[in-house]
């Protein structure tokens, strides 16, 4: 087989043309697409990093707000409990005072009532004693004693007339 120099030359030229065309029409656009994709990826990564950073910041803010909220809530709750304790103490104190006063009043009233009842009982007893005495004296005195009493009283009366 003979090696034809022209043919080799022709093949070299042909290959060079194909290579040039391919480089211009395929390689460069593909490289450009890859570069653009790389830029997009990089931008995406940057955006993602920024988003993560913002998210972290927001999380920190949220946590801080939650802590502040929690502290404030605890303070409000504590204040409310203190106030409630104070109010309860006041109410109990007032109630005790009022109960004591009421007890004292009732005791005084009861004592007065007791004294009054004793007085009434004594008065009734006195009335009964007098009534019984009157009946007993009336039944015990005979005519002779009656006359004697009348004589004695007349003697006393005429001295005073």
């Amino acid at each position, binding site marked *: 087989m003979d090696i034809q120099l022209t043919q080799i030359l022709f093949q070299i030229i042909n290959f060079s043309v194909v290579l040039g065309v391919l480089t211009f029409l395929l390689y460069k656009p593909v490289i450009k697409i890859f570069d653009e994709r790389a830029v997009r990826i990089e931008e995406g990564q940057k955006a993602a990093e920024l988003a993560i950073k913002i998210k972290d910041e927001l999380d920190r803010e949220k946590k801080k707000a939650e802590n502040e909220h929690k502290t404030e809530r605890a303070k409000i709750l504590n204040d409310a409990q203190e106030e409630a304790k104070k109010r309860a103490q006041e109410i109990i104190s007032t109630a005790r005072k009022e109960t004591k006063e009421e007890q004292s009043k009732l005791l005084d009233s009861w004592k007065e009532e007791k004294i009054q009842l004793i007085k009434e009982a004594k008065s009734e007893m*006195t009335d009964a004693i*007098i009534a019984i005495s009157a009946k007993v*004296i*009336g039944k015990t005195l005979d*005519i002779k004693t009656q006359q004697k009493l*009348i004589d004695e009283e*007349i003697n006393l009366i005429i001295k005073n*007339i």
Partner: protein
Amino acid sequence: MINTLKVTATSAIELTPKQAEIIVNAVEKKNTHGTKIELSQVVDPSVIAGIKITIGSEQIDATVITKLEKLQTQLRENI
């Protein structure tokens, strides 16, 4: 016209004439106006014993019931 002084003697039993006489005499001695004494007797068992003499508007009460009533008043006051 002779004036009359009414004297009332109240007792649980009737007075004896002597007792009535003593009362009349005592009132007459006291009475210097020469008025006539008119004694009326009232028997009231509720006085129990003793005597109550009323001379005009004046009253001398020496009945047992009055004494008991006074005692009752004193006892009530001391309760």
